[in-house]
């Protein structure tokens, strides 16, 4: 695979986003050119209560919802607090301009947009622990560094588009 020069753009809203807002932003963002991958971070929302006298009961948090991005269903496992988008370096300027317009229209509170490196760029020990040595040959390099070694990739990584 050809090497692509990429850079991360981080959206940091001053409020935790509702699934509807996240869906709206993501759908608009996914239309923009130059996107390589999108990482959604936030506070984890448990499915079941895992501590205390109510242990085992369903939480039914309104923010843990299935959203549709480009007709693909994604289950949000977190209350969205941060969106990191990896963008092709050549398209960066136009991307950020467009992104600002989208956020300006969809959010009625402050937010920060920062450009930098916010994801891992190299394979680390955690990756070897999760996938075993020599795994780089058999998986999509875009996935490296995207997930927590304790989580299941099938739940947290979705391939959308080309």
């Amino acid at each position, binding site marked *: 695979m050809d090497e692509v020069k990429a850079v991360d753009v981080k959206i940091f809203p001053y409020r935790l986003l509702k699934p509807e807002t996240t869906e709206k932003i993501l759908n608009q963002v996914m239309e923009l050119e130059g996107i390589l991958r999108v990482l959604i971070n936030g*506070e984890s929302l448990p499915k079941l209560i895992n501590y205390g006298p109510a242990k085992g*009961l369903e939480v039914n948090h309104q923010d843990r919802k299935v959203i549709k991005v480009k007709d693909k269903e994604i289950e949000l496992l977190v209350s969205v607090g941060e969106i990191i988008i990896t963008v092709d370096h050549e398209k960066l300027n136009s991307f950020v301009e467009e992104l600002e317009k989208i956020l300006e229209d969809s959010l009625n509170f402050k937010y920060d947009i920062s450009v930098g490196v916010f994801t891992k760029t190299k394979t680390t020990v955690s990756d070897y622990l999760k996938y075993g040595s020599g795994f780089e040959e058999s998986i999509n390099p875009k996935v490296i560094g995207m997930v927590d070694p304790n989580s299941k990739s099938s739940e947290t990584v979705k391939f959308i588009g080309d």
Partner: protein
Amino acid sequence: MVYEAQYAPGETKIAENRRRHINPSHELEKMRNVADEDVVKLLGHKNPGEGYKTVHPPLDEMDFEEDAMKDLVEPIDGAKDGIRVRYVQFADSMYNAPAQPYDRARTYLWRFRGVDTGTLSGRQVVEMRESDLEAMSKSLIETELFDPAKTGLRGATVHGHSLRLDEDGLMFDALQRYVYNKETGHVNYVKDQVGKPLDEPVDVGEPLDEDHLKDITTIYRSENVGLREDKELIEVVETIHAARTDGGFGLGVFKDDLRCKLGDKNER
């Protein structure tokens, strides 16, 4: 010499708010009404209308060895009846919640009898005889110490006090014990303090205005009133710091003692 309690140091409105909370002669402003039955439901220790469980017979019926302390201290009602001890716990958002754990601890100890309270970074737990606890919880929820959006009644899984608020201005709660009702503009509790669903939502009223919260909060925050702006408070903190450093290590004493032992005649 008669000392007058100062309750909390400081010359800013934040310090003034802390003194208002702590000072038992100041009557806390009542902001909302929550029915007794609803408080019982929120606490989740027993069903509304159910009798209190007891852990010992009423004190009047018990034989004690003679103890002057027992004559001196009047037991609270729950203790007299032998009612068991239960708890309530509040979490306060750093986004200008009216109260915060240390303020709560001091408030509880000044205003209520028979409390056993514990302070943690974002939450304050208090244990008490159940009947008295219910009365106390009611007054804590109904008065200015509580804001439906920035204060949470959380027995377990309390995480959220230091996180950003959600889009409705509510403090993050992984168990979503309370939700914002867009139609009424009120916050409704749909679960009790540990996360067990309630049969009917409990309305705790409208969230307070953010600007109003800035006026009544007891939290120093750079975008409102910063800690460094309060000269008197800084002076007190520095005095305590210096006294603890010197007193804790006994530096002065140690130095003089060592010199003396080393044969320095000029020192004590």
